[in-house]
């Protein structure tokens, strides 16, 4: 993978709004943003109600993903361009999720909604009608998804990258500072994890930093490129953003996203937890 394969600019997007075989998809946790105005022609996916199983804590299964994409009018050979608010957190999550189910041509809009809005580009409230397709997904590609036992085994051996804010990493806060702090699990981080907040990979306008800046960032933070890497955050969305930077932009070969993240790990009985800044 490389930047040209994985990321498109807002200029490219604007020039390809009506291109055949290109589908824009907005993914947010707050779908009212889409309803108020979105990139012309874009369809929406609600990460919570459409990508998550509504009973078990897991993703929709292969058949569920096929049904979802068929109903959205997305075909196997379409180029899917994902974007969203929150600096593309949920769009990056959806990108990883589309890769998990084997969609071949998926891209992220650099800067997402934020750059699009700050640039004053066109938004439209009309919901497009797309003909249903007969989408076929692949089995999940577990080479990019980490589960809890693998994470516990990775302590002290693989790169664990905690991409939450420093106050969440140290255990002072249990959620990002713009969300209510109602979670009941323990605070802290997985021992041996590096704390490289996802935001360090992004510019103020939500675009990704350059490859050179990203390499320098992760190198300076102590990421060992000769080892495998697992990224995590609180619920797996910010770590998708870092997974994208490491795996899709920098081409690191073995990077997994731990989607269970701190809400799972911080509630497990008997696993090691560390508090503080991890540097003492």
């Amino acid at each position: 993978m490389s930047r040209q394969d994985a990321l498109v600019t807002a200029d490219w997007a604007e020039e390809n709004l009506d291109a055949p075989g290109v589908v824009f998809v907005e993914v947010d946790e707050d779908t009212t943003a889409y309803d108020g105005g979105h990139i012309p022609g874009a369809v929406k996916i609600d990460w919570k109600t459409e990508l998550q199983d509504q009973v078990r804590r897991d993703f929709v299964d292969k058949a569920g993903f096929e049904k979802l994409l068929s109903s959205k009018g997305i075909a196997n050979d379409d180029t899917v361009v994902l974007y969203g608010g929150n600096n593309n957190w949920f769009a990056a999550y959806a990108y990883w999720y589309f890769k998990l189910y084997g969609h071949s041509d998926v891209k992220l809009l650099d800067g997402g909604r934020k750059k699009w809005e700050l640039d004053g580009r066109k938004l439209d409230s009309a919901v497009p009608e797309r003909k249903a397709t007969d989408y076929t997904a692949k089995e999940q590609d577990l080479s990019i998804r980490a589960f809890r036992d693998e994470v516990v085994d990775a302590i002290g051996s693989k790169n664990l990258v905690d991409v939450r804010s420093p106050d969440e990493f140290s255990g002072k806060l249990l959620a990002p500072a713009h969300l209510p702090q109602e979670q009941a699990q323990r605070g802290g981080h997985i021992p041996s994890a590096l704390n490289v907040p996802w935001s360090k990979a992004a510019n103020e306008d939500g675009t990704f930093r350059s490859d050179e800046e990203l390499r320098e960032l992760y190198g300076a933070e102590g990421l060992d490129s000769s080892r495998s890497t697992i990224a995590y955050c609180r619920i797996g969305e910010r770590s998708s953003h870092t997974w994208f930077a490491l795996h899709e932009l920098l081409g690191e070969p073995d990077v997994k996203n731990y989607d269970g993240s701190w809400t799972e790990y911080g509630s497990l009985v008997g696993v090691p937890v560390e508090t503080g800044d991890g540097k003492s």
Partner: protein
Amino acid sequence: MCGSPDQNADLPAGTDLTKESVLVGKVTNSGSPVGGAFVRLLDSTGEFTAEVVSSATGDYRFFAAPGSWTVRALSRSGNGQADVSVGGPGLYTTEVPVG
């Protein structure tokens, strides 16, 4: 500057101002509220901590630990920022002018 909690603030149910410090305020341009601004909470080293979009009335809200913070707003009509010092639990109201 925290004093007694502002009973009029629109906070989520369950917010306990005797335990949590909450940063609120409006993004303004020449005194008028700016909705749809991207409001970023930066820590004392200037590092990003969180981001919200201001409401139609220009309002933003963050939950933060005690310390020195900068609230920075990006908008189509310009950018701006303001500093906030959080000493303990309570409500901290700060206007962020842009332009």
